[in-house]
């Protein structure tokens, strides 16, 4: 082994310093490693080598001319000089060429102060230009609502082109034209719709591509960089929030090789603008009949306490699974104290009979970085690039670098940005049959096993299933991924269990994904809590919109209506809250409270508040503490209670409480208490469900609903981000997607108005023909007005033309009128 290492390493000398470098690596990598700074524009360690800016020219001994450090491989005994006269001359000359066409508009350029060209021009540029001819001007491009362009400033380093080709996979930009007419462009004007598009802003070494929502808002030196952790998905990308006077103005990635490397998804980058949304809830509000009345905290809390005291233990608390552990733990303590039920599994479908409870938190036995080395992947019910963009990026790299086969079970095709080796396109009620087919191909014994017989009889074992099974079995580092849609499925328990068996039978890793950024953290905080009670008298919602943040809006709607009092802790005044709540208390967002979150690999990260909460908004834990205090003072003496919540006097105490709990959980699974992360705690294999019944299929003439959670609408913060809502990922509000064959069968035209019935619920919508959707399936996005009027995210629905429907409705109404 050692000899091998020796053979593969060579020793070179840079500026008199000896450095070992792997054979085939480039001079610039070795120089970077020992901290010798070679100027560069086009080189980026995560992208392929283009060597087209020539800024990194260095002097290599015995070479007849200066060599580009980014594209010159190291050789044993090589002597490199980065600051010799020849190197300096070369670099200065390149800089002069680069500045020929670059405008002198730094004072009005957003990149000013953080510009690589500006910085290097200080070191290598001339103070007076010798170029007296006309500079060229390039027309700006409209790349959509996220990225602003000033293409005259472009120096054609092609980092953006290479990023969209190699990392994002969307290939939306190219080098169009030649010579002096070269432009970076989409050629045909369209927006850049990659879910990672914002990264080209960071990559751009000049001010050609800048952050559109942030444009002209601040200079880099006016802002403070505050480290934080994103909570829109279960990866917890590391972020720097750039703030000025307590207001977040911009987000940029914070390097973390284990999670987001040096990238950030657009959702994580642009969501913060929701904090400044005009609908922020700034003061407590009380319902007064149909109207809302602003009130003081004292009065609002007093009302809340009165309602809670009348309700006794008939109190249900519902928390967003995106909230940090501190919030979760505070409400858990409080719920324990007053004997209330507390639940965070809002996307859980398992309410109706026959539904099987899901694992609603994300966990995995494969570290994120190791996913990149996978050689076969089964993605089931996961719109991976939408749901967990950085995870999708890792899978794409697995295919690019290691030729991984990507196999998909889905109800609707999306852009996977990679080659799909096998695709099983099936409506969600058929998923169990297809998974059973794969399992059967892996292990035929299951056909006769008790409990499996009915399921295996229904198994679909076609050529695709056979191939998937074979690929998983033959692969050395296969991974089975149970996506977010699986966790929301009524048969989640069965589907997750089947995927576990597939993983075990093929020796694959298992990743279970769920919506709700900090669901793993919430699971750890609430373990053992009573989850729900029927028809609570008081319902407390924390950072949840009752008609959006749930897999069963109709159920939550009913709960709200039945409850005597609905207390909503929310950072925004949303329509459904105004309609259903009785008391609204302004709460701070995760970014404004900071806190601890646990990602799918069990990595817990704590960050401090990055922004100041506006108005009189408070962290949820302080509200819980105040309410607990008032209630204990009013009823039983404090010493009779679990007093831990009442001892929380500041953020540190709360953080410490969470840290203690996490530490206790760690110690619970390892004797030495030495495990660094919580992976062992959160990675629980899906258990065999009590009943192995197949999902209720849609009856003849019915379609099975696929409830997709739109990428830019996963939580309140995203939904209030103007930039994200303007992006191409926004979904149409009253639309249902169907396969063209299904439309024909139903005798409906594309764009026809229909009435959709799901159980007792009815809603009008426009149908859109979409061949990407499996036949027998109807795609209806969650969080939309249409979804709010319908039932569960998954389940059978029927359609009828709206014109007929109106007649039926009119008849029904007249009947009802007669009856009354």
């Amino acid at each position: 082994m050692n000899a091998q290492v020796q053979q593969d390493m060579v020793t070179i000398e840079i500026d008199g310093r000896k450095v070992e470098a792997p054979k085939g690596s480039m001079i610039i990598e070795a120089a970077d490693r020992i901290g010798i700074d070679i100027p560069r524009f086009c080189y980026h360690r995560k992208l392929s080598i283009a060597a087209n800016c020539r800024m990194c020219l260095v002097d290599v001994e015995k070479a007849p001319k200066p060599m580009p450090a980014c594209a010159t491989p190291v050789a044993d005994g090589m002597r490199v000089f980065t600051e010799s006269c020849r190197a300096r001359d070369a670099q200065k000359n390149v800089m002069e060429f680069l500045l020929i066409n670059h405008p002198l508009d730094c004072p009005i350029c957003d990149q000013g102060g953080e510009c690589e060209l500006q910085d290097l021009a200080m070191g290598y540029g001339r103070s007076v230009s010798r170029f007296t001819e006309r500079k060229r001007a390039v027309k700006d491009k409209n790349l959509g609502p996220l990225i602003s362009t000033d293409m005259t400033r472009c120096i054609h380093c092609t980092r953006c082109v290479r990023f969209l080709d190699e990392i994002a996979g969307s290939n939306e930009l190219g080098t169009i034209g030649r010579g002096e007419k070269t432009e970076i462009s989409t050629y045909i004007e369209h927006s850049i719709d990659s879910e990672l598009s914002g990264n080209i802003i960071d990559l751009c070494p000049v001010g050609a591509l800048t952050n559109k929502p942030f444009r002209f808002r601040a200079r880099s030196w006016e802002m403070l960089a505050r480290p934080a952790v994103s909570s829109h998905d279960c990866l917890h990308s590391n972020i720097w929030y750039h703030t000025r006077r307590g207001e977040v103005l911009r987000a940029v990635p914070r390097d973390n090789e284990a999670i987001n490397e040096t990238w950030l998804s657009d959702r994580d980058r642009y969501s913060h603008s929701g904090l400044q949304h005009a609908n922020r809830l700034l003061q407590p509000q009380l319902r007064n009949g149909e109207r809302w009345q602003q009130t003081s905290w004292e009065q609002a809390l007093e009302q809340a306490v009165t309602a809670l005291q009348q309700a006794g233990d008939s109190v249900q608390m519902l928390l967003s699974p995106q909230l940090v552990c501190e919030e979760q733990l505070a409400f858990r303590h409080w719920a324990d104290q007053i004997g209330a039920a507390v639940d965070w599994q809002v996307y859980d479908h398992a309410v109706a009979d026959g539904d099987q409870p899901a694992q609603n938190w994300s966990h995995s036995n494969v570290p994120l970085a190791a996913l990149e080395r996978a050689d076969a992947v089964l993605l089931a019910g996961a719109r991976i690039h939408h749901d967990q963009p950085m995870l999708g990026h890792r899978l794409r790299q697995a295919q690019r670098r290691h030729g991984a086969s990507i196999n998909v079970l889905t109800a609707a095709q999306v852009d996977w940005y990679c080659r799909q080796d096998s695709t099983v396109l099936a409506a969600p009620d058929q998923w169990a049959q297809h998974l059973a087919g794969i399992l059967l191909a892996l292990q035929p014994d299951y056909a006769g096993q008790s409990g499996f017989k009915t399921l295996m009889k229904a198994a679909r074992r076609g050529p695709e299933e056979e191939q998937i099974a074979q690929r998983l079995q033959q692969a050395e580092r296969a991974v089975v991924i149970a996506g977010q849609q699986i966790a929301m499925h009524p048969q989640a328990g069965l589907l997750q269990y089947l995927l576990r068996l597939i993983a075990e039978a093929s020796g694959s890793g298992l990743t279970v994904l769920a919506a709700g950024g900090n669901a793993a953290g919430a699971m750890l905080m609430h373990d053992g809590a009573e989850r729900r009670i029927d028809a609570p008298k008081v319902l407390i919602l924390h950072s949840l919109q009752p008609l959006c943040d749930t897999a069963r809006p109709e159920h939550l709607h009913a709960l709200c209506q039945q409850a005597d009092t609905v207390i909503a802790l929310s950072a925004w005044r949303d329509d459904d809250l105004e309609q259903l709540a009785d008391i609204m208390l302004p709460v701070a967002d995760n970014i404004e409270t900071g806190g601890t979150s646990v990602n799918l690999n069990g990595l817990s990260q704590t960050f401090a508040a990055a922004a100041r909460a506006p108005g009189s908004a408070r962290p949820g834990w302080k509200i819980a503490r105040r309410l607990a205090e008032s209630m204990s003072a009013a009823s039983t003496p404090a010493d009779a209670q679990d007093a831990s919540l009442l001892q929380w006097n500041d953020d540190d105490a709360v953080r410490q409480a969470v840290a203690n709990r996490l530490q206790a959980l760690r110690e619970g699974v390892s004797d030495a208490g030495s495990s660094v992360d919580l992976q062992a705690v959160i990675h629980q294999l899906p258990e065999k469900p009590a009943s192995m019944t197949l999902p209720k299929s849609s009856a003849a003439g019915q379609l099975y609903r696929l409830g997709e959670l739109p990428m830019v609408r996963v939580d309140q913060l995203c939904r209030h981000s103007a930039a994200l809502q303007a992006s191409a990922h926004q979904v149409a509000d009253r639309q249902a997607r169907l396969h063209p064959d299904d439309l024909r069968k139903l005798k409906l035209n594309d764009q026809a108005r229909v009435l959709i019935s799901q159980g007792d619920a009815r809603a009008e919508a426009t149908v859109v023909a979409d061949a990407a959707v499996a036949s027998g399936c109807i795609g209806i996005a969650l969080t939309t007005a249409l979804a709010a009027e319908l039932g569960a995210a998954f389940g059978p629905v029927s359609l009828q033309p709206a014109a007929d429907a109106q007649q039926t409705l009119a008849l029904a109404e007249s009947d009802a009128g007669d009856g009354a």
Partner: protein
Amino acid sequence: MSQGSASMAAGSAAGYQLSDAERTAIDHWRGKFPDGPQGQRSAIIQALFTLQEHGSGWLSTAQMDAVAEYLQVPPVWVYEVASFYSMLETEPVGRHKISICTNISCMLRGAGETVAYVEQQLGIKLGQTTADGRVTLKIEEECVAACCGAPVMIVDGHYHENLTPARIDEILAGLSPSDSAATDDEQD
């Protein structure tokens, strides 16, 4: 390479269907390069050239998208190639294309006057097409490697050296006046 981008093209490619002859020609060139995305990419130049020759002498976006879809490459790769090479046209052109070399040797031998004379005779400027759609004067031509015969111009792919006004008159008069450009193409 990218399923996604190929599907992106599908939206706008509705306009152009490749003919069997075009498919055969593209397949012929595709077979000369290694498998994989880079091999597919390599076939773009000849695919575009085929379409331009078979069609109206220039490449529409719909045609480029059709090539991208057929070769299963991102459309932008095709746009890059089409916009890079001066022999590939992305705007409508006349039936005949004239390129006059204005690089150093030709310039020293009076290419400036050549350009002026041709412009005057055709009544158009560099980069323009005659109103009847007969001739396009290309805007810029790099050295065409015929310095020994400077000044040089290329008419529909054929070199004409040691140009004089009389010779130019002769060449322009020889260009088919109306529809058919076929006679000139037969020469080689």
